[in-house]
């Protein structure tokens, strides 16, 4: 008689599940959860729980990312001297162009986004909207540029202050590794625009 080996079931603690719920499900305008929310929901040792969650998510190519609340443009809600962060769950690796297109972003839009971030970062985080639009229009055309910049503002990748200066938005702080992007831009060598009916027509059809 052979004995079938028992399947080992992984048991996750309630705290771990609660942490996953808090970080995955969006409750307000911005996804993720803040330090005080996590402390209320998970207790004092929430950082240990988040570290455990990070370990679990690692296998799925996801990670728990911590971003300073002030850099996201949110108001500080913690006690004086206490650090305030917002925690997100984000992709640990990167997307391929095909995957990015399937998630609804055109290659043109991603290129425009890279150009915007590159210029804003090189100008220490703020840039005039007109200058930004001129740069994007060079690649995407004048009409599409207006829509694109508005889209980036609406989705939280960019923010515009009362003086009309454009800066990086909360989503960029949470999602984009600016250091890597600037490094790639600095090391880049320009190449001619590829000519391909398949790709271009595909772009036009989206």
């Amino acid at each position, binding site marked *: 008689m052979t004995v079938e080996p028992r399947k080992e079931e992984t048991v996750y603690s309630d705290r771990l599940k609660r942490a996953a719920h808090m970080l*995955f*499900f*969006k*409750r307000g305008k911005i*996804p*993720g959860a803040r330090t005080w929310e996590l402390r209320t929901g998970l207790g004092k040792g929430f950082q240990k729980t988040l570290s455990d969650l990070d370990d679990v998510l690692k296998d799925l190519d*996801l990670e728990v*990312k911590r971003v300073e609340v002030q850099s996201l443009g949110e108001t500080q809600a913690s006690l004086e001297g206490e650090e305030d962060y917002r925690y*997100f*769950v*984000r*992709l*640990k690796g990167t997307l*391929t*162009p095909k995957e*990015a297109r399937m998630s609804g972003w055109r290659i*043109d839009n*991603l*290129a*425009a986004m*890279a*150009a915007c971030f*590159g*210029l804003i*970062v*090189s*100008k*220490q985080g*703020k*840039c*005039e909207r007109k200058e930004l639009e001129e*740069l994007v229009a*060079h*690649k995407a*055309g004048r*009409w599409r540029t207006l829509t694109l910049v508005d889209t980036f503002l609406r989705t939280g990748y960019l923010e515009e202050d009362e*003086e009309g*200066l454009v800066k990086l938005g909360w*989503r960029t702080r949470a*999602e*984009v*590794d*600016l*250091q890597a*992007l*600037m490094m*790639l*831009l*600095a090391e880049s060598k*320009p*190449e*001619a*625009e590829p*000519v391909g*009916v*398949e790709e*271009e*027509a595909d772009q*036009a*059809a989206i």
Partner: protein
Amino acid sequence: MKRGSSRTSVKKDLEEIVQTCNSIENRQFSPFLLDVSEALRILRLHAGDLNRLEDHLLDMRAITGIARVVGLQSSQLRFQSTSLFLDPELAKQKLEGLSRQQLAEFFLLSWHPVTELEQLVMPAVKEASEYWKKMLSFFERRGKFDLGQFDSPGTFGLGDLGSSGMMEDQSFTERLQGLWNELKSRAKSGEGVEYWSFVRSQDFRETVSRAQLVSFLVSYGYANMDKNGDRIVLTPNETPVLQTEGSPHSFPIPIPWEKAPA
């Protein structure tokens, strides 16, 4: 150099400092454009000539402006010491020189999208519940439009979808390729084809569709468009020729109703 101490000159000097500081704050100039010690020397020089309240206010604005510029200089130095630093002009040049494909690839290599799942919250559930309660029944709403008896369900095939315009018979690429071939065959003698004679079709909808496809042929370098007076001529290229120099131009061509065949 000794500066004139008349009130006008004091006001002019202070206003210049305030204006320069404001321009720097608005990112029009580099923060290092302002010589802080020189600006402070000017303020000190005029300190004894400030008699009226508005002069003192202007002096205060100048000092605050200089302080803010010093703050910007400090943050720029801190910024330059990190690897995020790239000279703005150099960055602009690089960005303009890179292809869209390269830029998109760089972005994808540094992009880690955040996961976010929408969920129902109590206020939304309450709102939805109220809406559901207040909503009239389907039959009551339908009754208002006087639509008569229900039709029994029927089938809707791919052919129907195509004829109703909900689905394309051919892919965009195939249609573009087909039109390019047609243009090449009609321009066999080496001369171009008159735009309207090529675009005009049996019905207006088809004319608009062909005009749209022609715009793609021209944008992607499959054909050239030349304007000779009122005449617009299309010349096909054997292989796509993309213009990489200069900025692209838009050339709107209105399609009047009279261009539709009678």
